[in-house]
């Protein structure tokens, strides 16, 4: 198998609604692969199928050649897939440091005995947490409660928690959602900095961001993948234009 992540004929229907239909996708290792499409196209559901939030109706997901279909959401991080959410999904009353620390600790495969050591006994995790927090630019907020951060900072923390999962593949669901232009710029740079070190599967609505950072773009429409290609190809693609602008009559 060539791709790091391969989805074969993934489908999900909620009662009568076909949210994702026969979706095939291959994500190459080290790439930034974006999924775009109008609202309600099924992008987030597609993510949920990969990350175990929702089991697929049919189809399989392979990661590093290994079948991960049907693993529950708390098992997925342990194979090396970490996700961030469209709606900010952090631990509001914990500090920035604790937010990231908890994510790192989850992946450290601690023994039962280590569970009752002191949090301060884990020097290596502490250093990693600080490093990740500096990388996203929140080092000044280390001991602040997450709920006191601005929306933009919370989005950055969301990415930091995802990094804390020490993943091979990151699933980023609209990281720039609701961000002001400057903050969007900051987030774009952060993702560009992560590209190469991590394989990134990205859902994004802001086209300038998508076009700037993606190697490959897949377009989703009513649950189907209707096109795939590099940024230039996608820009020219008629099916994509129709999906976004409606059919020309």
């Amino acid at each position, binding site marked *: 198998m060539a791709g790091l992540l391969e989805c074969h004929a993934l489908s999900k229907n909620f009662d009568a609604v076909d949210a994702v239909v026969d979706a095939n996708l291959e994500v190459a290792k080290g790439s930034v692969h974006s999924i775009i499409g109008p609202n309600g196209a099924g992008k987030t559901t597609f993510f949920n199928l990969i990350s175990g939030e929702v089991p697929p109706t049919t189809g399989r997901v392979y990661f590093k050649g290994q079948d991960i279909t049907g693993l529950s959401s708390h098992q997925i991080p342990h194979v090396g897939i*970490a996700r961030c959410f469209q709606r900010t*999904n952090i*631990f509001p009353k*914990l500090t920035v440091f604790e937010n990231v620390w908890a994510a790192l600790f989850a992946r450290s495969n601690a023994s039962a005995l*280590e569970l*009752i050591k002191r949090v301060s006994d884990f020097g290596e995790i502490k250093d990693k947490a600080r490093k990740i927090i500096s990388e996203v630019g929140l080092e000044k907020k280390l001991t602040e409660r997450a709920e006191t951060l601005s929306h933009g900072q919370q989005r950055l923390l969301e990415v930091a928690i995802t990094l804390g999962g020490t993943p091979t593949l990151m699933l980023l669901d609209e990281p720039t959602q609701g961000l002001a232009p400057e903050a969007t710029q900051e987030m774009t740079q952060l993702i560009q900095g992560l590209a190469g070190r991590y394989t990134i599967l990205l859902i994004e609505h802001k086209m300038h961001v998508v076009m700037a950072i993606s190697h490959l773009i897949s377009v989703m429409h009513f649950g189907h993948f209707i096109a795939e290609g590099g940024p230039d190809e996608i820009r020219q693609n008629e099916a994509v234009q129709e999906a976004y602008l409606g059919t020309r009559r």
Partner: protein
Amino acid sequence: MRDRNIYLIILAFIVIGPFLQPRVTVTEMLIFGIVAVASNIMIGYTGMLSFGQAMFFGIGAYVAGLLLKAGMPLIIAMPAGILFVLVLSIAVGAFCVPRTGLYFICITFAFNQMFYFIAYSWTDLTGGEDGLAGIPRPSLLDDPVSFYVFVSVVFLACIVAMKRIVDSPLGLIFQTIRENPERAAAVGYNVKLYKWISFTIASTFTGLAGTVYAMLYYIVPIDQIHWLKSGDFIFMTLLGGTGSFFGPIIGAIGYIWMYDTFALFWGRWPLLMGVVFVVVVLYLRGGIVELIGKVNDRYQRARGAP
């Protein structure tokens, strides 16, 4: 406030307490202090509200009481009671923990009622409505002072052990679950498993407190396993404040003090408790600890003002 200072205050309370209140009252405060702190591991740290903690308290008391009556030494009776509750809470937890919110409250409540009626109807074993009477204390603990010292040591050991738990990664995992169970799962924690662990820890310490309680009045009254007692535990915890580790101790002390004081001069004292509960829930969500903080802020500001 630093932990060390808080421990000093607790020690001072243990020493001075018996001079301010009857010794049995202070003993009871310490026993229920363990229960309130244990309950808070679930309520305050993990975000689970169990309405069935009296079943573990009562069963711990019954098991230890029965073994003591059968002539077993305390060194066997107490661990046996704790172990029994540990195993029982693992089993009961298996049914309760997969439920969340109101359903969790209801099913813990239902289990509590079930064990209450077993205790109520199994008269031969538990004494039924009359309670399990005639529990002996080991001769070493038979005078009031040595029993008080014993309870104090158990209390301190439990508090230190539970503090260690909440300061550990395990405690942080509990908090991530309280804050955001979906996210806790998405970073790789098995949320149900950790809720189960939290449930078991809280219940076992509650049962431990029960084994000590059995010896306090030489009897286990049936109301110690009634669901109303579960409500009392929650009240103590909320009264003290779920936001801090030590807060519930103040809650237990305050609750028992009110109970003892009001009951003396007014038959309808539960009405007053109700008023206090309403005030706490409406205006003082952080409990007495929040009140102390607010008063302290006022004082500091007043002192700082020219």
